[in-house]
């Protein structure tokens, strides 16, 4: 008896590992790609941006991060603020959502 890991899924890089840590270690379904962190970006700012040869690791939890990315890719544009990446009901400028305090509103935005 051994853990069956589909080699196909190992092709996808692990979003948690890309953040820095994945609890599943060698048993992860996704591929763990060893990379080198950009220390400028860790400090807060890297002038090389997308050209940087080191990794600008995202810290957002993968599902949230991916949701936004997918939305951006799908060309979702908010009709309230005109920005891409979220729908109007998730819009920070949507005043309909602002009946509670700012902090409450922010928590409600988090997708489950």
């Amino acid at each position: 008896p051994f853990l069956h890991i589909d080699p196909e899924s190992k092709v996808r890089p692990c979003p948690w590992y890309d953040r820095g840590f994945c609890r599943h270690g060698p048993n992860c379904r996704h591929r763990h790609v060893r990379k080198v962190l950009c220390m400028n970006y860790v400090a807060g700012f890297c002038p090389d941006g997308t050209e940087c040869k080191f990794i600008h690791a995202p810290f957002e939890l993968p599902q949230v991060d991916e949701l936004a990315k997918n939305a951006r890719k799908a060309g979702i544009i908010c009709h309230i603020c005109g920005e891409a990446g979220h729908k109007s009901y998730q819009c920070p400028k949507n005043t309909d959502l602002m009946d509670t305090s700012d902090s409450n509103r922010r928590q409600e935005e988090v997708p489950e």
Partner: protein
Amino acid sequence: PAQDFSLDSIEEKPWRKPGADLTDYFNYGFTEETWRAYCDRQKRLRYESGNTMPTIERER
């Protein structure tokens, strides 16, 4: 994935076991200690930038 955020929520820490390869769990040369420090730094600097992430507040 709250349990993915904090190391403390993981009861058994398999990367501590003999023969375990830390780099299977930690990327970027992180260790348990430096990953913890990194997470704290994230929290602190996001606060300093005025851009606190609601997700993180909740996960802790």
